[in-house]
């Protein structure tokens, strides 16, 4: 173990990796701070560049860029009342109300400090939980994996949206896309329509660049809202008073970070949902709930730590099972496969140095967030004035070239455009995109484990539930599917029983 740790240390503290981290931090801070550019988009745009890097610098770039972007999304929320990333949307009104009261420094500082604290908390859970889980997962057979993937997809549908039916639709579309090509247990070309480009399947990376970057460019092009006005001319010292806040709200910080890590670890739900849930929880348990919405820092402290802890939490199922915890880790998994670092429990036993390196990267990213974040707040005014009508065309071109760079294929550029337009249309109509991404990433795994299990058990469906862990996972999956129906049934029968 110590040899692996030393190896991880030398990989992470390599000058090249450190340089990549600093550049990725600045990039992440910028992308997060510009409204309309999300943290997921930051990762999607990084993929073509990381494609040409060694595995550890590539992961370093993605980890730091996302951590920074989730924090800096708070900045325009506070100064313009527009969340920089969806993860800041939950407390944008609160932060802006604080700015109106002349407390922009406190709001931004709380966002920064407790983002770092939440991020470190999530990292601690990642470090403690994932090796133990991996150890456990080593005994999993195709039956357990089948149920695990199914449970993951189920969570994605029911947690990531309030419209399960539309979630099921996008999940099925994602699974269908995953069917294209030769990559199935029978090795039979499906839905290729005689096109040689499609025998290898629809490229995951072009699709994700389309869904997360092109769709944002389209959304910007059709955005008719007038540009927002900066509410503050000068932001003072942001660290002042943060220690007092930490002493005043220790329970909130702990609760926000725990909930965030948990929500992050659940497949399909990421930082944005973590922030919404923990803001609501903060208000519910607060001693002064009437102050929420009027510029009260408590909710920002709690949900600000939640959204960053969710980032690390999402890596737990991603590294241990290859099941992404959010859209960001869905992209990360794609990159890990490209780098031959296939996620799964064996990654922990055969290449522990890589795992230790990932842990270290998370710790460093969350620590350097404080000084770099202060720097970013200082120049925030300039970032917010970057002309987006110049930036968006550049992003479009970067998407095209980046997509082309992966396989030198113009077909992929077409896939990117189609995915972008479809994602835009679906989101406009209330179809969540997270289940689609999970469907694409996990479709192959679901089918493979299903077919393997069927062959092993000679077609006997009962053997899917004879092993104890498989049976438990099956029960949980079925419960998640049935719960909404049961609730509706109970409600129509009259008042719900006490305690439910």
């Amino acid at each position: 173990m110590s040899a692996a740790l030393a190896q991880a240390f030398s990989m992470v503290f390599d000058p090249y990796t450190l340089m990549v981290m600093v550049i990725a931090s600045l990039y992440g801070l910028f992308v997060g701070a510009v409204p309309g550019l999300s943290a997921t988009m930051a990762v999607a745009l990084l993929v073509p560049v990381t494609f040409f890097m060694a595995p550890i610098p590539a992961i370093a770039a993605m980890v730091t860029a996302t951590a920074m972007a989730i924090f800096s999304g708070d900045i325009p929320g506070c100064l313009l009342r527009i969340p920089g990333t969806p993860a800041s949307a939950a407390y944008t009104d609160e932060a802006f109300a604080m700015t109106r009261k002349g407390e922009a420094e406190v709001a931004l500082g709380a966002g920064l400090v407790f983002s770092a604290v939440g991020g470190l908390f999530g990292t601690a859970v990642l470090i403690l939980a994932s090796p133990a889980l991996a150890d456990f997962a080593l005994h999993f057979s195709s039956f357990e994996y089948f149920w695990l993937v199914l449970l993951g997809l189920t969570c994605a549908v029911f947690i990531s949206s309030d419209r399960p039916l539309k979630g099921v639709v996008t999940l099925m579309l994602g699974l269908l896309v995953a069917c294209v090509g030769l990559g199935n247990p029978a090795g039979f070309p499906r839905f290729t329509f005689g096109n040689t480009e499609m025998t290898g399947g629809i490229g995951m990376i072009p699709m994700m660049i389309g869904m997360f970057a092109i769709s944002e460019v389209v959304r910007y092009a059709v955005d008719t809202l007038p540009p927002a006005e900066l509410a503050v001319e000068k932001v003072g010292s942001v660290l002042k008073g943060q220690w007092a806040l930490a002493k005043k709200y220790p329970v909130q910080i702990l609760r926000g970070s725990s909930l965030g890590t948990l929500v992050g670890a659940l497949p399909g739900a990421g930082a944005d949902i973590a922030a919404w849930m923990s803001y609501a929880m903060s208000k519910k348990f607060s001693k002064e709930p009437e102050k929420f919405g009027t510029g009260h820092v408590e909710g920002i402290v709690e949900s600000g730590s939640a959204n960053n802890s969710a980032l690390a939490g999402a890596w737990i199922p991603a590294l241990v099972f290859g099941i992404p915890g959010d859209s960001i880790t869905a992209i990360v998994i794609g990159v890990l496969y490209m780098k031959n670092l296939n996620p799964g429990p064996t990654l922990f036993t055969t290449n522990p140095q890589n795992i230790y390196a990932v842990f270290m990267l998370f710790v460093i990213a969350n620590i350097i967030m404080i000084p770099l974040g202060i720097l970013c707040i200082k120049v925030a005014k300039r970032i917010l004035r970057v002309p987006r009508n110049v930036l968006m065309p550049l992003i479009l071109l970067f998407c095209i070239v980046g997509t082309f760079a992966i396989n030198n294929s113009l077909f992929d550029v077409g896939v990117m455009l189609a995915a972008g337009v479809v994602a835009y249309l679906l989101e406009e109509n209330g179809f969540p995109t997270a289940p689609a991404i999970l469907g694409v990433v996990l479709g192959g795994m679901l089918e493979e484990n299903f077919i393997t299990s069927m062959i092993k058990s000679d077609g006997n469906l009962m053997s899917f539930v004879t092993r104890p862990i498989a049976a438990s996972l099956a029960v949980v999956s079925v419960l998640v599917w049935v719960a909404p129906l049961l609730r509706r049934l109970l409600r129509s029968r009259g008042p719900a029983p006490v305690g439910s």
Partner: protein
Amino acid sequence: MKLNDAIFGLLLLVLGIAVLAIVQGYPKIPGQQVGPALFPGLIAVALCVCGAILLVRGWRDRASVPWIQAGPWIRSPSHLLAFCTVIAGVVFYILASEKLGFLITSTVVLAALMWALRVSPGRSVLIAVVASLAIHFAFYKLLRVPLPWGVLTPYAW
């Protein structure tokens, strides 16, 4: 652009039926109950069920939910232009980049889109040229991506 759920339902139903029709022709694996048709077949059935529910729901709500509800941008010529330029820009790149080469194609796409987003024409062209050269340098020279030269091949550097 918002569409009534019934339209999505109908599209999904058609997609599901088409998939079911296609997988009928897939081969069986001798000695096994499960073949390549099973998985897409199950997905198609689920799509049909969801599509049918959406169709019924949308039809039921048709009085209150219009079939197609365009966003405010449809009525704003400048936003409509911007939307079309984004789509047309990518399509143009796919069709023209091999022949015209990366530098010309990307300059055209960038300049057109910036102009459509109301950057002044002079500035649009200037930024487009500089950005194309910069991206070309980064991807062609540093990352060695074979971006096409097209008509500029004799002058390739």
